[in-house]
């Protein structure tokens, strides 16, 4: 029998993978993708609870999360591209200047 606990465990595991990705990798694009994984973990949680509580608010919030993720990706990738054009690197450890 699949309960909401299963979904929570799945969500937690996905979240963990995302966190590991953020901490371990140096490529900023991979870090961004890890953040997307984290957001997805949150969404799984929201939808699972929505299903369990018979309440659609969870789904509404999942839609908001997706909208925020879209905004984040647009601006974030714009910054990465701008940075890359000037510094020729995507290594996050080399991104240590506030301006150039």
């Amino acid at each position, binding site marked *: 029998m699949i309960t909401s*606990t299963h979904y929570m465990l799945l969500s937690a595991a996905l979240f963990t993978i995302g966190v590991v990705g953020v901490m371990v990798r140096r490529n900023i694009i991979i870090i*961004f993708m890890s953040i997307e*994984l984290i957001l997805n973990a949150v969404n799984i949680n929201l*939808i699972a609870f929505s299903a369990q509580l*018979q309440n659609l608010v969870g789904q509404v919030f999942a839609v908001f999360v*997706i909208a925020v993720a879209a*905004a984040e990706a647009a601006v974030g*990738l714009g910054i*990465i591209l701008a940075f890359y054009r000037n510094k020729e690197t995507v290594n996050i450890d080399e991104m240590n200047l506030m301006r150039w």
Partner: protein
Amino acid sequence: MGQAIAFYTMAAAILGFAVLVISTRDTVHSVLFLVLDFLFVAALYVLLNAPFVAVIQVLVYAGGIVVLYLFVVMLVNLKRPPEAHQDPHRRTKLGFGMAAAVLLEVAAIATYTSANPAPAIAASAAMPVTGNTEQVGWLLYTSYLIPFEIASMLLLVAMIGAIILAKREL
């Protein structure tokens, strides 16, 4: 039974692809695994009676956001071969330490809930309100109108910001 099989398959796929996303060396492959991961998450939403969110997941995430990622990766990979982006991992200990902490917490939840099992998620037939597009839309435009408008403002700002960042001269 069928639901359990579906859940475990999808969960395995989601986690497996997620691991591949953060561990693959070639960034383009990473992006591809991310798409697959999102598609399986969408399938999971269908399982949870949320077809609207599932379709939005595919449309916005797989069809929109990840295409953006792919664009950026392609532009970045063009100048230098992918090998040039490989470098030693950083903060490995910290990362895995945090992961261990989260897993510990998860284990605590698991032991707690195994003692007090949560009610099973009802099958679709038992749900009075399914993940119905109309109902989600109704909620969005009534109770959550202000958050909805804020979200649209956020998207507008993001759009303008992205254009300013990417355009050569204004």
